[in-house]
């Protein structure tokens, strides 16, 4: 009979998903390790770390969609969005290698090259400004590449951190129930009743400029979305038999929460966080556009648009327009990919 009803340890070892889980773990570790190396500047050379990062991200995405490719790639739009997102991510990751200029290094800028139209060259003709320059002589193409990186990394970092906080709060509220749940969820309601741009503006006015500060502000305005979503999912999951079974086995609460409840709440989280990354990019750009976001010497897409905005009426459209197109492309492709993910991962839409 042992072949039909295997004992518990055996079930784990023969789990057909195990190699995939290991692969996912490896990919996740690779992403984390390469990010750590890039941020700290120690370990492998930057280019190698970037390649590992890209491969790790692709592997993670592939593993997430394993067995559902047909469903995900349901039409040409899905292919286009995925390709454009992949392209933009590659551009952002390899900005340093691809950009003709480091737009954040003031020594490489010369105001005498300022406000040049697309296709013009600099003084000694050593460099062509394919998309023109802004008023500081910053190459718009390089600015877009670096700006993409800033926008993407700020929003992904903020989204992940907000998700972590939101998940802990939401799942704890669902598990604890009663008064704790009521208090936590009223805090969430309170937070959600304010427009996020308003809260973020006030926070940035108080903090001052800086990448770290904008990440913190974005976390503060975002965590509540996750808390509410996770609580909802967790409440419905907690009533299911496998949780009762886990309780029956006498497992400790933390193990039930993190080992059983949480993994089953993840699909909606992935969908929300994808859409939320796009929203965060827009929020970050809005803050930078309004002059309270990133430092002015390290423009993100929003600040590039703001810098060129004043010149629109005078016909020098390129300073604002090209960064605007880049912002549009990244937000649109993330949203479309998010849509496809929702349709793919949401069990309710399974026919």
């Amino acid at each position, binding site marked *: 009979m042992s072949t039909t009803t295997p004992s518990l340890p055996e079930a784990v070892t023969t789990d057909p998903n195990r190699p995939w889980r290991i692969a996912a773990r490896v990919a996740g570790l690779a992403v984390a390790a390469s990010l750590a190396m890039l941020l700290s500047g120690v370990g492998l050379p930057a280019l190698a770390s970037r390649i590992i990062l890209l491969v790790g991200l692709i592997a993670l995405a592939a593993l997430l969609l394993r067995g559902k490719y047909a469903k995900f790639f349901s039409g040409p739009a899905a292919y286009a969005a995925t390709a454009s997102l992949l392209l933009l991510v590659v551009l952002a990751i390899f900005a340093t290698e691809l950009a003709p200029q480091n737009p954040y*290094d*003031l*020594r490489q*800028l*010369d*105001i*005498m090259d*300022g*406000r040049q139209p697309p296709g013009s060259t600099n003084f000694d003709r050593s460099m062509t400004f394919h998309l023109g320059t802004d*008023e*500081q*002589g910053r190459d718009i193409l390089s600015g877009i590449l670096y700006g993409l990186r800033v926008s993407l990394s700020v929003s992904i970092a903020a989204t992940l951190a907000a998700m972590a906080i939101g998940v802990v709060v939401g799942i704890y509220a669902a598990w604890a129930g009663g008064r704790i749940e009521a208090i936590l969820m009223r805090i969430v309601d309170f937070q959600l009743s304010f427009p996020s741009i308003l809260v973020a503006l006030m926070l940035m*006015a108080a903090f*001052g*400029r800086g990448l770290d500060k904008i990440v913190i502000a974005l976390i503060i305005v975002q965590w509540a979305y996750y808390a509410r979503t996770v609580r909802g999912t967790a409440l419905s999951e907690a009533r299911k038999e496998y949780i009762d079974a886990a309780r029956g086995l006498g497992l400790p609460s933390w193990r039930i929460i993190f080992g059983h409840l949480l993994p089953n709440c993840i699909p909606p989280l992935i969908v929300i966080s994808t859409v939320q990354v796009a929203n965060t990019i827009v929020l970050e750009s809005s803050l930078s556009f309004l*002059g*309270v976001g990133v*430092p*002015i*010497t390290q423009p993100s897409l929003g600040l590039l648009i703001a*810098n060129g905005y*004043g*010149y*629109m*009426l*005078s*016909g*020098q*459209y390129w300073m604002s*327009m090209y960064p605007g197109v880049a912002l549009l492309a990244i937000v649109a492709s993330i949203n479309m990919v998010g849509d496809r993910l929702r349709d793919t991962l949401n069990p309710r839409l399974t026919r």
Partner: protein
Amino acid sequence: MSSPVFRGLVAALLASALPALPLAAQELRIGLASEPSSADPHFHNLGPNNQLRRNIFESLVGTDEAQQLTPLLAESWEPVSDTSWQFNLRQGVTFSDGSPFDAYDVVYTVCRIPGVPDSPSLFTTYTGGITGMEVVDPHTLIVHSAEPYPLMPTEFSTFGIISARANGVDGSTLTFSPEGCGADMPVPATQAFNDGTAAIGTGPFLLESFRRGEGIELVRNPDYWGDAAPWERVTMLPLTSDGPRVAALIAGDVEFIENPPLQDLERLRSDDGLRVVQGISNRVIYIHLDHAQVPSPMITGTDGANPLQDIRVREALTIAVNRDAIVERIMGGVAVSAGELLPPGMFGAHEEGDLPPRGFDAERAQALLAEAGYPDGFGITIGTPNDRYINDAQVAQAVAQMWSRIGIETEIDASTASTFFSRRNAFEFSAYLAGWGAGTGEMSSPLRALLATRNSDLGLGGTNRGQYSNPEMDAVLLEALRTVDDGQREALLRQASRMAMDDYAIIPLHYEVTPWAMRASIDYVPRADQYTLPYLISPAQ
């Protein structure tokens, strides 16, 4: 791809301007860049308020476009002793309610100024030095001060005169004292000026209505003592966003706008139906350096030393800046490179070419840094507002580029004006960009505020947030402040200015140039005080 689309949009916008109606007879509509906070002439010492005030309430002394003093309600003035000035008032002037103007109105006005309730910024800055006022006869006034006060006539150009009789006061019963003229003196409330009941002045216009956020309407004063205003009716609309203000001019909704944005000037100039005038202002944009704090905030790579205390470093920072490039590229040519703190032609400034802007010399700057012991430079952060002066943060960024090129790693800390100024006042910056408009139009104003050793008792160094201190320059400046003779005072002020510039005490960048744009059928003479005064806007010939 969208360049033709954009050009199409611009063409459509321009086409929409064509059917604009011709000017209604003697009516003028002005788009204001910033709105006055009140019609009360003594409520708030603020540019837009003072600009509106000049149309309705005149002062004893007027100022021309170069801020030189001209007769207005006083026909002449002269010092009668070391500490007193005599003003000879104009005869036959009446307020708009018909009551005659005399010296008692001046006393009443000076009595009212300190007691305006809820005032965000009082005019006592200008009247605080008055210790006594003596009415010799109704058209002769003697003003006393404790110290020699060469700027007294200038101070009397800053505030408008209101009528004592119109407010139910018999001026001859008033006795002036610096502590107050009696608590029971009836004074109009600020609200009474805003709703027009107390808006009784001697100026070329009468206030018809003042509605915050909607607009101000002025009508010609038919009984004005001087040349009648060229406009029967003037409407001033607050159009505080740059784009809509320019669009309103192009579309013909207004005939005249203040401060068209620099980036649009080229296009406005190329339009035959429009005219752009511009004039150098009394405002200098400068970078102040921290002379006092050790270690200085946000300076890195110097082991705690403050490199800015070394004159060679200050010289290097000064000559590393290519002022002409900033003026041309960032300011669109609408600025003038600065060699000191007040443009040539104004009182106490050097003649053109006598103290020219420091030339740009990056190699010498690097050599000076090496000589001072910083061959590899150091790190510094420039604090700057990003919404106060024309292209302020962009100018700071351009300076950062130039400093970076001589090896000084420069960062920019840009914030909104309110945040910036409170941080600056807390000495949080080693280097900061700001501007100073010489309200009095003479060199004593920037020297006193920005470079004199800080001393609140003497009112010196109030904005010297770099804590520069040069006792020799202080002595010359104080001497100038005590000198009543104009020629001597100007020479002393020039000497003080040169001493400070030779010490590289501060880095002057450029003087702002103020542009105005209007329909081609009207004209305006640009003013250093940046005021838009409708009675000086001349209509079609």
